[in-house]
């Protein structure tokens, strides 16, 4: 073992010097009190009763810390277990083998092979590297290294022995964190009028506000400047509002939007909540090179704020890297031709190993069941394949082979009843070096009926280019936008049991590039966003009646409220620099509010958790809708009349003030009349008709009609 030594005594440290100075000063003061014996040599020796109450630690603590310790250098030592036990005659050979195995991690400074009485090595050895990093790397890489059939190296840092040695015998239970009452985090669901909340960011991102979408005017609940540095996100059930900061993420909630949690992750860019809000995943491209642990992706426990596990990310990551099962129990990602499924709350790999899937391109979870769907690209003669895997059993519940596949996109219906795989197929493929060029692309929709026995698959072929696809969130309809602008058509299909999807309606030549279904289904908004000037069409898919055809010029975003009662159309400053505004519409396309906001950026409705009502309850409510509706209408009417009464009152007051003001003005005007007459040579010009006699008659000719008549010669 090497001990660092050979230090010359260092100069007095600062702390020591300061303390010495203190002592000396005290003495000098004593001398002055004695009374001006200037010539006398000052006495620096301690008085006899002086007790040195300064410990060495206090006096030169910083020096003591530098004092070489016996254990210095120990951290670069590792212990390797499981080394073959050999006699002296074969020791050199063994040493050579060991050196070869470990040399790539750094220079070996020292090696020690303990021997027993018979001169044979004991089967464990000590190796010292040039520094700690090399030792750690060696341990990481060569632990469990199989030398041969009988011998597997077990590598440990020497310092770890001390650590594990010092584990106290008795278990000390951790002290539970004191409970912090955060109030009712779900208070917003208890609003007696069932108004929804939404957040907006404006002033180019500097101000964030939360509004209650009340009738007839939205009510501001909270407004803060610099609440977030980039944007905000609601958690999927609406409990938390997440804000982004240089140092990490903050969550806000409760009635006053107080900070309820924060997660320190420097340079965070993206976050993702698990569907039940139990966990939050954050990603940051900033990586501290000195740290050994992965830091790009961190999974946190939302309520405790604890870091659960960290991962490295490929760069740049395709967000979200991890996808969650609907019940928060599993999360998965693609990693080196594998699907790695992790379990919660242990955060370990499910069954300790990834699912090997060669050629996997993408996967997704069913929004309601623990079923994972993935697809594999074509590889020469092996066709592409879509598979459904049940987790945790890893049982393949359905696979479907597909041919001539250029690309696949998976769309789950929100209730998990159907999975639609949009397959882009090609007529010809041309290989150019590493890239493959496809031509004659056409589309197939493969629809998996998840709720039927054996999961039958329907197929639907579309020859045109597909611009957009969207499932009705409930029920069994979907809509597609197909064709090339400007002749874009919208087609709605219905999925049926035991037969191919039927076309319900085709709307030709529509100025749209997106379709947005109401969260409750049935109603859909066709929108021509951005380049298409913001044309909006509100359609009832029960009878495909166009309820409203309108526009919000240059709209960039459409957001349905979680209940499907309102739609917001936005012109975001992020997409368009003028006329930034959000407009609120009823689901039928009636304009309710045009709100112009300076440098408005983003509007997000606060989500609601799934309804707790049973299907029967919902049925009953629908049945008695008329009864409730009458009630609500009365309430709405009262609110509107109150608002209009307020406006009328305000106007009356304004008018009264103005009339009084005008009266004063007119009086003043009359008083000034004489002066005015004097200024204009006695002519009264107060009104247009006051000096009618002065008018001169003038003839003005009008060209009424122009006629050309050909006169015969």
């Amino acid at each position, binding site marked *: 073992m090497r001990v660092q030594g050979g230090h010359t005594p260092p100069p007095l440290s600062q702390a020591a010097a300061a303390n010495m100075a203190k002592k000396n000063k005290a003495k000098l003061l004593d001398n002055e009190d004695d009374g001006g014996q200037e010539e006398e040599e000052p006495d620096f020796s301690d008085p006899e009763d002086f007790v040195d109450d300064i410990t060495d630690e206090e006096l030169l603590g910083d020096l003591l810390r530098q004092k070489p310790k016996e254990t210095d250098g120990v951290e670069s030592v590792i212990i390797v277990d499981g080394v073959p036990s050999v006699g002296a005659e074969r020791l050199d050979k063994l040493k050579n083998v060991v050196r070869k195995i470990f040399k790539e991690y750094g220079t070996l400074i020292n090696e020690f092979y303990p021997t027993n009485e018979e001169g044979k090595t004991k089967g464990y050895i000590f190796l010292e590297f040039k520094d700690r990093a090399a030792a750690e790397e060696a341990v990481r890489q060569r632990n469990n290294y199989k030398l041969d059939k009988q011998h597997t190296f077990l590598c440990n840092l020497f310092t770890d022995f001390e650590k594990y040695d010092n584990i106290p015998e008795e278990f000390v239970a951790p002290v539970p964190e004191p409970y912090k009452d955060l109030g009712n985090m779900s208070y917003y669901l208890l609003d007696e009028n069932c108004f929804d909340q939404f957040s907006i960011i404006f002033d180019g991102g500097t101000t964030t506000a939360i509004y209650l979408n009340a009738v007839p005017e939205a009510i501001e609940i909270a407004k803060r400047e610099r609440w977030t540095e980039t944007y905000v996100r609601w958690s999927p059930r609406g409990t938390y509002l997440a804000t982004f900061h240089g140092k990490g993420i903050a969550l806000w909630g409760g009635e006053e939007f107080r900070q309820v949690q924060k997660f320190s992750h420097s340079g965070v860019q993206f976050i993702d909540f698990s569907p039940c809000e139990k966990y939050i995943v954050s990603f940051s491209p900033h990586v501290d090179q000195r740290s050994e642990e992965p830091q790009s992706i961190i999974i946190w426990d939302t309520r405790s704020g604890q870091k659960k596990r960290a991962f490295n990310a490929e760069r740049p990551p395709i967000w979200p890297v991890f996808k969650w099962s609907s019940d928060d129990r599993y999360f998965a990602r693609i990693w080196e031709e594998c699907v790695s499924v992790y379990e919660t709350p242990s955060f370990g790999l499910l069954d300790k190993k990834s699912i090997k899937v060669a050629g996997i391109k993408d996967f997704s979870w069913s929004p309601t069941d623990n079923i994972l769907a993935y697809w594999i690209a074509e590889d020469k003669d092996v066709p592409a394949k879509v598979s459904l895997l049940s987790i945790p059993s890893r049982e393949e519940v359905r696979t479907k082979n597909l041919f001539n596949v250029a690309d696949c996109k998976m769309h789950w219906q929100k209730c998990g009843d159907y999975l639609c795989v949009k397959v882009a197929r090609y007529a010809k493929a041309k290989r150019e070096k590493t890239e493959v060029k496809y031509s004659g692309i056409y589309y197939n929709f493969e629809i998996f009926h998840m709720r039927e026995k054996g999961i039958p698959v329907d197929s639907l072929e579309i020859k045109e280019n597909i611009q957009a696809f969207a499932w009705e969130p409930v029920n069994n309809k979907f809509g597609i936008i197909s064709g090339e602008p400007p002749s874009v058509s919208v087609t709605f299909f219905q999925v049926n049991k035991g037969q191919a999807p039927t076309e319900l309606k085709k709307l030709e030549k529509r100025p749209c590039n997106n379709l947005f279904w109401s969260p409750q289904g049935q109603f859909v908004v066709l929108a021509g966003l951005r380049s298409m000037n913001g044309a909006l069409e509100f359609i009832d898919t029960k009878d495909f009646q166009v309820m409203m055809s309108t526009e919000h010029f240059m709209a960039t975003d459409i957001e349905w409220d979680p209940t499907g009662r309102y739609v917001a159309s936005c012109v975001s400053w992020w997409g368009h620099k003028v006329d930034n505004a959000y407009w609120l519409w009823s689901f039928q396309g009636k304009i309710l509010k045009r709100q112009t906001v300076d440098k408005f950026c983003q509007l997000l409705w606060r989500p609601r958790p799934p309804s707790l009502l049973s299907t029967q309850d919902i049925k009953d409510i629908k049945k008695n809708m008329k009864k409730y509706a009458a009630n609500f209408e009365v309430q709405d009417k009262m609110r509107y009349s109150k608002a209009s009464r307020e406006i009328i009152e305000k106007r009356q007051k304004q008018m009264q003030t103005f009339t009084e003001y005008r009266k004063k003005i007119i009086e003043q005007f009359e008083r000034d009349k004489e002066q005015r007459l004097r200024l204009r040579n006695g*002519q009264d010009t107060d009104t247009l008709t006051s000096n009618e006699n002065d008018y001169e008659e003038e003839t003005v000719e009008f060209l009424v009609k122009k006629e050309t008549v050909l006169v015969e010669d």
Partner: protein
Amino acid sequence: MKPIMLQGHERSITQIKFNREGDLLFSASKDPKPNVWYSINGERLGSYDGHSGTVWCIDVKWDSSLFISGSADQTMRIWDVETGTSNTTLEMKTSVRGVSFSYSGTMIAYTTDKMMGHNSELNIIDVREPNNVDSTPIMKTQVTPTYTKALSVLWGPLDEYVVTGHEDGSIIKWDMRTGKEIQVGQEHSKQIKDMQLSHDGMMLITASKDTTARLWDISNLEAMKMYKTDRPVNSAAISPLVDTYPHVVMGGGQEAMDVTTTSSRIGKFDARFFHLVFEEEFARVKGHFGPINSICFHPNGRGYASGGEDGYVRVHVFDDAYYQFKFDF
């Protein structure tokens, strides 16, 4: 009703003005020839030929005998309305940005630009002898650098003071005798583009680049109302029938240099009508395909005219619906 389009200018309109009776409409533009038109049928009576640069500002005397124009050619000219001849040309050091006849018509106030090392000035000259004008100002005030430059000017009701509108959005009332500042109105945050009086001269409306127009009491410069739009306001006017139809009209629009695609939809080049008391917009008139630079009511309150960056002047007469529309209160 279909508006009358006055096409006589080669470049964008800078200012338009009715004479007191409203039978004549004067227009000035960035081309050097101001025009005068019959407001009733849009027939052009003639033009005032003499300037060699943009004509920034015009005014007409109450008895329609004299017409003045201030130009970027660094002159101000006084014209005979009827003959179109220029009796007097006053040479300046910089462009003339605002001109105004006093109530009596015996004095002219004008403001000059700050350019080439010369300061912006407010001057008043005596024009009792229009054919023999003494170009020495009877009142002279240097505006810059104490204040920002004055781009528009008008007279108070009884020839006692003048009000100037400034580049920083302030308006300043000056004593016409001493040239001293009496009051400052600081409400707008950007340049004042236009100022107009109510027909009785007691109220003032200012149009500003800060997208608003404001109504002031001229006697104490108290800001009374604000009319908010989402585009720069270049001009605003108060209806002469203010006690029966308390309306204001505003014109403006996105400046061409500020938009990438100058579609008239995005520029919002509409004339907007606001209720003077409630500050609420109740009507818009489309038509121009560039920002409106100048807008005014016909003195009888039964129509209005607007002049735009597109070079056109549009003369409108109100339909019956205009008189029927009433706010609930």
